[in-house]
C-alpha cells in the first residue's frame, strides 16, 4: 500500500479549472470565427492566425525568458486574447500591425501587470485601442464582406461611421439610412462592414448563450449593457429621430455585441458581484452611447469598457455580496 494522502478539507473539487473555463470561451467564439472566415475569406484566417500565434508565442517567451517563471500558455487565456484581438480588427489589417497589437495586448496590458488575473484592462481591447490610435488608416479601412474566396474588398464605411460622416455633412438619420440600405434583419445575420467580429450578431449571441448555460459567466453584465444602450438611445431617438439613431440600430451595429458578450464579461477585468456587474454594465452602456452620439469616434464600446475596467476595484469594494446574518 502506498502512503495515504492527508490534506485539509474539502477532499473533492469541482471540474472547473482555468483551462476548462478558457476552453469554453474559445468554444463559444468558434461560431463567430467561422462566420467571419466565411464572410471575409482567407485574409481573415490570416489575421486570426497571426493574432493567436503571436499572443501565445509572446506569452510563452515573456514568461519563460523575461520573467523567468513557469509559462502560463497552458491555461489558454492567451488564445482567447488572440481570437478576441483578431475579431476586433478589420480583415484587411496587415500582419505586422496585428503583431504589434499582440505585443501591446500580451506584453503591455497583461504581463506588465503580472500576468493572468493581475491586469486592470482587458488585454485584447488595449491592443485594439492602441492600434486604433496608432494606425487609424488601417483600422478604419472597413470593407464590406465579400464571402469566402470573394474578390478584393471594396472600401466602405461601417454603419456607425456612415452615420457620423452623414451627420457631419448635415444629412438626417433617415436619409443616411436610406442611402446605406441598412436592414436590421441583415445586421442580425451578417453582411455589414466592420471588424471581423462585428459581422454576425447571431453567432456571437449563440456563443454568449453557450457561456451562460455552461455557467462560465453570469448574464447580468451583458444584459445590463444591452438594456442601458436600448434605454439611452430610446430616449434620445424619441426626442430627435433626425439627429439620433434608434435603439435597434445601436444594439446591432458596431462591436456592441462582441464587447458586451465577450470583452466586458472577462473575469479579470469585471466586478465579481451581481450588482457590481449591473453597475459596470450600465456604465459601459451609457458611455458607449455618449461616445457614439457626441464623441469624435463613431464607435465607443472599446473605450467604454476600458474606462469601466478602471472602476472595477472601486465597484468591487462598494458592491459586496450580502453576508449571512449581517446587515
Amino acid at each position, binding site marked *: 500500500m502506498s502512503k*495515504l494522502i*492527508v490534506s*485539509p*478539507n*474539502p477532499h473533492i*473539487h469541482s471540474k472547473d479549472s482555468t483551462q476548462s473555463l478558457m476552453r469554453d470561451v474559445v468554444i463559444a467564439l468558434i461560431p463567430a470565427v467561422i462566420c467571419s472566415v466565411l464572410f471575409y475569406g482567407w485574409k481573415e484566417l490570416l489575421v486570426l492566425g497571426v493574432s493567436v500565434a503571436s499572443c501565445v508565442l509572446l506569452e510563452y517567451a515573456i514568461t519563460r525568458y523575461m520573467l523567468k517563471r513557469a509559462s502560463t500558455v497552458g491555461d489558454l487565456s492567451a488564445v482567447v486574447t488572440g481570437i478576441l484581438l483578431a475579431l476586433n480588427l478589420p480583415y484587411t489589417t496587415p500582419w505586422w500591425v496585428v503583431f504589434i497589437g499582440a505585443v501591446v495586448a500580451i506584453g503591455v496590458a497583461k504581463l506588465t501587470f503580472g500576468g493572468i488575473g493581475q491586469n486592470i484592462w482587458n488585454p485584447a481591447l488595449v491592443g485594439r485601442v492602441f492600434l486604433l490610435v496608432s494606425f487609424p488608416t488601417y483600422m478604419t479601412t472597413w470593407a464590406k464582406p465579400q464571402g469566402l474566396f470573394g474578390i478584393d474588398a471594396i472600401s466602405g464605411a461601417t454603419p456607425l461611421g456612415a452615420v457620423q460622416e452623414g451627420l457631419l455633412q448635415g444629412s438626417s438619420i433617415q436619409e443616411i439610412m436610406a442611402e446605406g440600405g441598412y436592414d436590421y434583419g441583415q445586421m442580425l445575420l451578417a453582411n455589414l462592414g466592420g471588424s471581423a467580429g462585428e459581422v454576425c450578431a447571431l453567432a456571437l449571441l449563440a456563443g454568449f448563450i453557450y457561456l451562460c448555460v455552461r455557467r462560465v459567466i453570469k448574464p447580468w453584465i451583458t444584459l445590463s449593457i444591452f438594456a442601458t444602450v436600448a434605454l439611452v438611445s430610446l430616449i434620445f431617438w424619441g426626442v430627435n429621430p433626425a439627429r439620433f439613431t434608434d435603439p435597434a440600430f445601436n444594439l446591432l451595429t458596431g462591436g456592441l455585441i462582441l464587447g458586451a458578450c465577450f470583452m466586458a464579461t472577462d*473575469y479579470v477585468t469585471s466586478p465579481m458581484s451581481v450588482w457590481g456587474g449591473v453597475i459596470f454594465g450600465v456604465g459601459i452602456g451609457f458611455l458607449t452611447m455618449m461616445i457614439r452620439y457626441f464623441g469624435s469616434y463613431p464607435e465607443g464600446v472599446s473605450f467604454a469598457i476600458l474606462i469601466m475596467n478602471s472602476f472595477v476595484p472601486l465597484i468591487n469594494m462598494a458592491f459586496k*455580496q450580502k*453576508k449571512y446574518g449581517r446587515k
Partner: protein
Amino acid sequence: MARTFSIGGVHPHDSKISRECRIEPLPIPPTVYLGVAQHIGAPAKPLVAVGDKVKVGQPIAEPGGFVSAFVHSSVSGTVKSIGPRKDLAGKDQLTIEIAVEGDDWLEGIDTSDTLVTEIPADSKAILDKIRLGGVVGLGGATFPTHVKLSPPPGSKCECLIINGCECEPYLTSDFRTLLEKGEQVVVGAAILQQVLGHVRCVFGIEVNKPEAIAHIREVIAKLGYKDMEVLPLRKRYPQGGEKQLIDAVMHRQVGSGALPISVGAVVQNVATALAVYDAVQKNKPVIDNSVTVTGECFPKQANLLVRVGTPLSFIIDHLGGMPADAAKVISGGPMMGRAIANLDAATLKGTSALLFLTEKQTRRAPESACIRCGKCADACPMGLEPFLLNRLAKAGGRLEDLEANAVQDCIECGCCLYSCPARIPLLDNIRLAKGEVLGAIRARAAAAKAAAEAAKK
C-alpha cells in the same frame, strides 16, 4: 420548488452509492480505545482505573466541565491502560483501552426492539437522562446535547429542526437511520419537542431522499404527533450546516457569533434524535453509531452499526482490507471530513463515515494564479469573499481587516476551495486566519470583562 438556503452553496455529485445498504452490526473488536475528548468542550475525566472490570454502557469518564459529556464503555471487559494514544491525526489523546470479554450489558438498559412511545412528563428528568447518556451532536460538531437543550435565560425556542439533510456526498447513515429507525427518530424528536416546551418540529430532508421523506411522513401520521412535519429541501451543499438549515427552514439568519437559539431555533441531527430516544426510553447511552463505509474504489459499500472506540483498521479488515488504489481515507464526508493519517485510531461518537478516495478523485491540482472569477464568493454560504480573505491571511498581520471582512463567520464548509478553478488553497489559509481572529476576539472579550469587574470594585 423545494426550499433551500439563500446564499451561496455548491452542487457536488451526491455519489450516494451505499444508499441501498442496510445498517448491519459490526462484530465487536477484541480491544476498543475510548478517547476522553469525543465532544466539543472540556475532555472527560476517567472514572475507572487500570484493571477494573467494566460492562457495556457503564460510564468510564465523567464531564470535565459544563460543556462536556460522559463517556461510556461500549464493550464489557477489563481496562487495560489509560494513557496517551495517537488519534486519527496522529496527535496524542488521553485514551482508555479496554480488552473485550463477552458482551455483558449494564443492568437497566433495555436491549429489546420494542418501541416505547410513552414520553416521561418531567423535562428535567429527560435532560438528566440525556446528560447521563453522554449524548452529543452526532451530525459532526459533537456539541453536548443537554447543553444545547438548556437555552440561556431570556431566550425562547420556537422551532426544533431535525437535520436530515445529509448534504455531504457519499454519506448515507442518516438516510438509512431514517428508513430503518424512523419510529425511534420521530419519538426522539417528540422528546426533544417536549423538553423545548412543545415547540413546532420540522424534519429538514433533501429531495434526493424521497423514500425517507415519505417514510417519516407516514410515521408521524401513524404516531399522531402534532406540530411535526417534514419539509423537503432542494439538494444543495452545505444545507446541513446549522445556520444554512435555519435559513432554509425558517427564513431567519443567525447573527455573527450568536447561537441559533437567538432566532428561536434548535437544530438536532437525525442520529442525535435517535441517541436521545435510546438514552431516555431505553436507558442506553451512546455506545454505538452507524457509520457509512463507502467509496468507488472500496469493494464493499456498507452501513455499519459500530461500537464507539472500534479501531478503523478493524472495520477495514472486516470488509476485506484496504483497496490498492485508495489514496485517501476520510473520516466523514468529502467536503468537511478529516483525512486520516493513522488507521490505528479508533472511531468516536461523531464518526459518521469512512470514505475511500482514489488519487485521481482527491489529489489537488497545482495552484495557479487567481483569475478573479468570483466563483468562491458565489459559493460561500456565509456571503464572504474567500479570495480577499485569502490574500489578507497571506499578507500576515492584517487581523483587523480580516475581522472587518468577517473571517470569523467562516464555517469551513469547503465550498470556496471546491469551486476555485485555480485551485488556490483558500480554506487552508482562511481557517488559520479565522483561528487567529477568534483568538483576538476572545482576548478582547476577556479584557473587557476584566476591566468591567475592575470598574465595579
